């Protein structure tokens, strides 16, 4: 890799041993992918995947301490993933004791993020690109982000340029101010290896469709044809919300960092089939394929027929419109079933800034009346508690299903279960 004079000096230790190790890390990272140079980060804000002070991750916080002690703070403000805990989310005494032990390093970690340069106290969300949060990069901007669902959204829907960086690496990029140029930062790295042909009889469930694509293409880039017949050609709020959920499932069930949707996402609109590599493989998705994928999910509850004890909706965090739509659907479901409140304890999760906006609306009291709890947490962090793992928890998130013992149900199934008590 060819470094500038400034970069070489940093690598040689001009600003101390710690900064030299940051540079060495970034150089080795780039060399693993044959990067020829470092390029400046051009986005206003970064985003970090590390937002949880979990005791077992002490080596991370020790490393952070080392960086801070050498004055190695981020050159840009940044947002971070959601906080792990909220007293409003149902949990029993024993769970709370375990949470306190598990997340014993939370205060230390949040103090470190403040010192590194987190945007503000509300900047804890996986959906940092939502307008209420204010970290939406522009097309073509170079990012040093981590958080798989945010990276795939930024690349695909916003047209920004970011690799699937790991936690810690993303912060080191923000500290240095530049990142190695490879993969999704290059035009060639953004070309599609797969054509996904949608031949379904209706709009595919975003979370199942994303899971199917992720499992098939893994880390490669899919170009999706036929989805515009259901989504249209405008990236409006509801389409963006769909793509948020779709992308998160592709990234967690596989490791997709970029997808193109014909006639819809920015690069597909501009370049069309020119984005597709020669000899791209084809994956046909029809109703039967989606059913096959959904039926392949293992249910690892001790009693697979147990009545759910908790439901999470909002991984990734819900948009303001999704919250309103869910409020209306829950109200209608309860009315139809003759119930006043949800029959399964249910938590909707969203960004702190979205939560504040929602609470200003008429829908806040209406949602509260249904018994649904609104929170800013990361449901995955809740499920990491071994006592939570033993609970029969249902979710509309394929990401949460992948990483925890939660069972996946479609949005329609979730609605029926929480408003009626069963399907």
């Amino acid at each position, binding site marked *: 890799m060819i470094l500038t004079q400034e970069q070489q000096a940093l690598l040689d230790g001009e600003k101390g041993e710690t900064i030299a190790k940051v540079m060495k890390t970034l150089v080795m990272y780039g060399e693993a992918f044959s990067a020829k140079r470092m390029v400046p980060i051009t986005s206003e804000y970064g985003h970090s995947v590390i937002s949880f002070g979990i005791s077992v991750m002490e080596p991370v916080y020790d490393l952070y301490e080392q960086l801070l002690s050498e004055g190695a703070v981020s050159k840009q403000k940044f947002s971070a993933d959601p906080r792990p805990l909220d007293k409003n989310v149902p949990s029993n005494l024993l769970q709370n004791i375990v949470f306190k032990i598990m997340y014993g390093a939370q205060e230390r970690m949040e103090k470190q993020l403040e010192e590194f340069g987190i945007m503000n106290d509300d900047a804890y969300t996986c959906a940092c690109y939502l307008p209420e949060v204010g970290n939406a990069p522009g097309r073509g901007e170079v990012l040093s982000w981590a958080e798989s669902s945010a990276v795939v959204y930024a690349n695909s829907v916003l047209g920004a340029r970011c690799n699937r960086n790991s*936690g810690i690496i993303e912060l080191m990029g923000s500290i240095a101010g530049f990142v190695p140029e490879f993969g999704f930062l290059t035009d060639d790295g953004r070309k599609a290896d797969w054509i996904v042909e949608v031949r379904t009889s209706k709009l595919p469930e975003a979370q199942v469709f994303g899971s199917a694509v992720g499992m098939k293409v893994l880390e490669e880039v899919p170009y999706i044809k036929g989805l515009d017949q259901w989504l249209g050609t405008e990236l409006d709020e509801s389409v963006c919300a769909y793509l948020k959920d779709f992308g998160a499932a592709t990234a967690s069930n596989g490791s997709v960092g970029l997808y193109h949707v014909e006639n819809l996402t920015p690069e597909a609109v501009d370049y069309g089939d020119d984005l597709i590599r020669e000899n791209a493989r084809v994956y046909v998705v029809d109703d039967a394929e989606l059913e096959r994928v959904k039926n392949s999910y293992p249910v690892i509850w001790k009693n697979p027929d147990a009545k759910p004890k908790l439901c999470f909706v909002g991984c990734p965090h819900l948009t303001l419109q999704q919250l309103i739509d869910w409020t209306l659907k829950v109200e209608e479901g309860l009315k139809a079933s003759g119930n006043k409140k949800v029959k399964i304890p249910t938590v909707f999760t969203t960004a702190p800034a979205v939560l504040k906006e929602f609470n200003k609306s008429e829908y806040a009291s209406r949602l509260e009346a249904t018994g649904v709890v609104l929170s800013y947490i990361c449901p995955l962090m809740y499920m990491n508690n071994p006592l939570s793992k033993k609970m029969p928890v249902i979710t509309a998130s394929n990401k949460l299903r992948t990483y925890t013992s939660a069972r996946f149900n479609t949005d329609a199934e979730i609605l029926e279960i929480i408003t009626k008590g069963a399907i």
Partner: protein
Amino acid sequence: MSRTFKGRVITPGETTAEALVSRTGLNTLASYQSALMFGDKEVKCGDQNNNDLYKKPMLNKALCLPETIGSTTGGMVLYCAAALGKQPACMLFSKEIDSLAASGTILASVWTDVEMPVIDSLGEEFLDYVQDGMKISVSSDGSVTVE
């Protein structure tokens, strides 16, 4: 009978260990989080979706895999595993290494004293040939001998 495969060195080192093979992408977070969180001494794989590895001990094994997949905490999780002495003996990728695995193994190499050889681009034939329990020897030039 032994066979030797040649790959590219990501982080150098030499080791000998027993093979543990994942035919599908290794989801690092899902595989390691329970074991790290609850101090599992054998570091058993916690990924319910990985039929090859689920519940098998990963500590000090020669982890043979196509690539890693899943959350971008993956690299951080690998780094923590190394810092806590819970890492595999080596990681052997049939494909080119992915960005999360590269991050984790490079962080471990630069910021800890752990020596965990990582070789990529060993080819599909490597993964077709290697089976759980085979003896793996890794050389510093990226040669991997399977017997």
